[in-house]
């Protein structure tokens, strides 16, 4: 009896472990009830905060709008999203529908992880002509559409109307008073700094990470700089124009160190602006959704000033992708593309987050035009400069951000950091 008991316990443990290892659900989706007769479309998304809610609303609307398909929306942790997507699709166990940033598309396409959408698009009546061409371009590889763009989200600028007015720098029409030149913008920030009380800051902006890198990219492009690397998707060549790159970086460096209009090492520049302590801040358009739900924050969004001649802004784009499987279920795939069409047609819902919808038809709709703030910066989508199309985009970004951080911190000269960037990027793309 005793022996039998211990054996039983042992077997139970083994069974539990094996059960934990296996995936007997056969689905990458949430455990939800699929309406009878409907085809399940498992979608993985990488959104957080407000974005996640707006996407969930669109999914619910889609599921309610018809009975043929049911989108099973799975929220994934952003930090692990791409690792998970790449590995799970590679092993044939990923979702039917995924979301990817435009700069990650080259990796997905070159590794054969996503499917050409053209055939399905024709099937469901997805019309490519309705999209903003600039945004659509980043999804086309060898003449084929490998993704459906949802939006474009550029880095823009926000001003606190009350503080700028208090400093006497607000025009009657609500625009800030400054000349769109390198000196004009600095004069504007310096006047703010001198006029505002000491506990208010002129420009809330971090001195590490992606935001200063994005502004650097915008200024570099405004000066006519075009690429960091160019050529082949998988084997590009280094193409950064160091003269322009250094000039753009120096301009930002001076904001921190020479003019001291933005304090170094802000831990949370969002909260500095949100609490009304900063006159100007710059980040992605997604902040619009946060600011407009903040009580007593009287703000205006606007494109980051074009100071060096050419219109340019950093941006990325969220896109829908159709993961590739050898034995893909055509019904689910068609359902996925149906959902892509639905979501982009209803881009105004998505614009609530602050993003600029990818479809021109949405931008021209009354529903979008009636939304406050969005029209102030919607035009930026026409001149955004996406980062280079290369499978190394994420690796290159790590390198550039880290080296620029060294420069902002004052631990190396601009010449030194760009020679480091050249060396590191060249090493990376040589592999």
């Amino acid at each position, binding site marked *: 009896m005793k022996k039998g008991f211990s054996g039983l316990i042992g077997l139970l443990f083994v069974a539990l472990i094996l059960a934990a290892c296996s995936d007997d659900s056969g689905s990458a989706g949430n455990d939800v009830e699929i309406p009878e007769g409907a085809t399940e479309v498992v979608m993985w998304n990488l959104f957080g905060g407000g974005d996640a809610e707006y996407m969930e609303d669109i999914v619910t609307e889609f599921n309610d709008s018809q009975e043929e398909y049911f989108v099973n929306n799975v929220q994934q942790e952003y930090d692990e999203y791409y690792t998970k997507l790449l*590995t799970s699709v*590679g092993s044939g166990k990923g979702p039917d529908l995924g979301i990817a940033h435009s700069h990650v598309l080259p990796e997905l396409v070159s590794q054969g992880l996503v499917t050409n959408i053209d055939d399905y698009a024709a099937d469901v009546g997805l019309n490519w002509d309705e999209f903003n061409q600039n945004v659509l371009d980043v999804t086309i590889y060898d003449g084929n559409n490998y993704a459906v763009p949802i939006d474009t989200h550029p880095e823009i600028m926000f001003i606190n109307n009350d503080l700028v007015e208090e400093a006497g720098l607000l025009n009657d029409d609500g625009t800030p008073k400054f000349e769109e030149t390198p000196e004009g913008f600095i004069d504007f920030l310096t006047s703010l700094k001198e006029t505002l009380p000491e506990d208010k800051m002129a420009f809330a902006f971090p001195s590490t990470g992606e935001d200063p890198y994005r502004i650097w990219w915008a200024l570099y492009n405004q000066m006519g700089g075009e690429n960091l690397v160019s050529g082949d998707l998988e084997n590009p060549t280094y193409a950064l124009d160091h003269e322009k790159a250094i000039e753009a970086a120096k301009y930002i460096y001076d904001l921190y160190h020479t003019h001291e209009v933005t304090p170094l090492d802000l831990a949370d520049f969002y909260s500095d602006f949100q609490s009304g302590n900063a006159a100007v801040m710059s980040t992605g358009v997604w902040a619009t959704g946060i600011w407009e739900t903040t009580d007593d924050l009287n703000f205006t969004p606007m494109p980051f000033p074009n100071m060096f001649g050419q219109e340019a802004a950093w941006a990325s784009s969220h896109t829908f992708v159709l993961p590739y499987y050898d034995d893909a279920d055509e019904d689910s795939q068609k359902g996925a593309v149906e959902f892509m069409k639905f979501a982009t047609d209803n881009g105004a819902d998505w614009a609530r987050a602050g993003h600029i919808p990818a479809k021109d038809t949405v931008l021209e709709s009354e529903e979008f035009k009636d939304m406050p703030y969005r029209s102030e910066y919607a035009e930026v989508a026409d001149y955004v400069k996406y980062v280079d199309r290369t499978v190394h985009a994420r690796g290159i970004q790590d390198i550039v951000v880290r080296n620029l951080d060294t420069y902002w911190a004052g631990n*190396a000269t601009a010449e030194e950091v760009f020679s480091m960037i050249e060396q590191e990027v060249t090493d990376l793309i040589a592999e």
Partner: protein
Amino acid sequence: MIKKQWIQDLKAIPFLLPFFVAYMIFTIFPIFKGLEMSLYDWTLVRKLEFVGLENYIKMFTDRHFWRTLWNTTFFVILTTPTMVLLALGLALLSNLNTKLKTFFRGSFFIPSILSVSVISFLMIFMLQPYNGLVNNVIQMLGIDAEPKWMADQGLAWVTIVVVTLWWTVGFNMILFLAALQDIPESLYEASEIDGASRWDMFKYITLPQLIPIGRVVLLLQILASYKVFAQILLITGGGPGGATRPLIQYIYEVGFNQNNLGYAATMSYALFFILLILSIIQLKSQRSGEN
């Protein structure tokens, strides 16, 4: 009798089996898989081609590997001796026969139960310039300074070391405390009769008795410090500009952001090898010490 023992042993198998299976699947198998990966060009998605020792050769000329390995070693040098001394000091304090004994033990140990994300968030909150607690206290004391705890290279190291000490010292303290309580009271009584001072007692009884556990703490600390990653990633992100980036962060970036698991596995093996050598040296010296 012998047969009975054999049956007895057999009975243990069902209880050992689950752990054995899990251990094989999650520890032993990945070790060999990792070795295989390091010999291939291997992305997150698939194995590409056999490259032999190419990844290892590349590692020896990779500046970032050496830089991040040095950063990690620097962290080990900074934290290990301070950790051992601090843990010992706190254990002695907690072992004093005072009313505050329980309070000391509790308050020193509590940080260890917090997760790395919590302690990192707390530290960023306290150390941020302009409105963080620490800088406000400094200014209240009349010092007109705004230290950039996370943006200045030197201060970033201070921050990481202090955070790590505060967070993990409790566990080492418990080890010392347990050893302190194992020292027979009779030794102290005997020495008291012989007229030994308190300092003599500490020097000739307490310290020698603590040497074995001290070795364990030292080894565990070196191994743990070489694997430092999460608190640095969360507090400084390896910055400013890579100044505090440890080896594991570099491995992580290469593997997951640059999609090069083969090379990441190679560097993991290098770290494994370093830890193995250190452990062997440590164990050898321990044995010769015991002899």
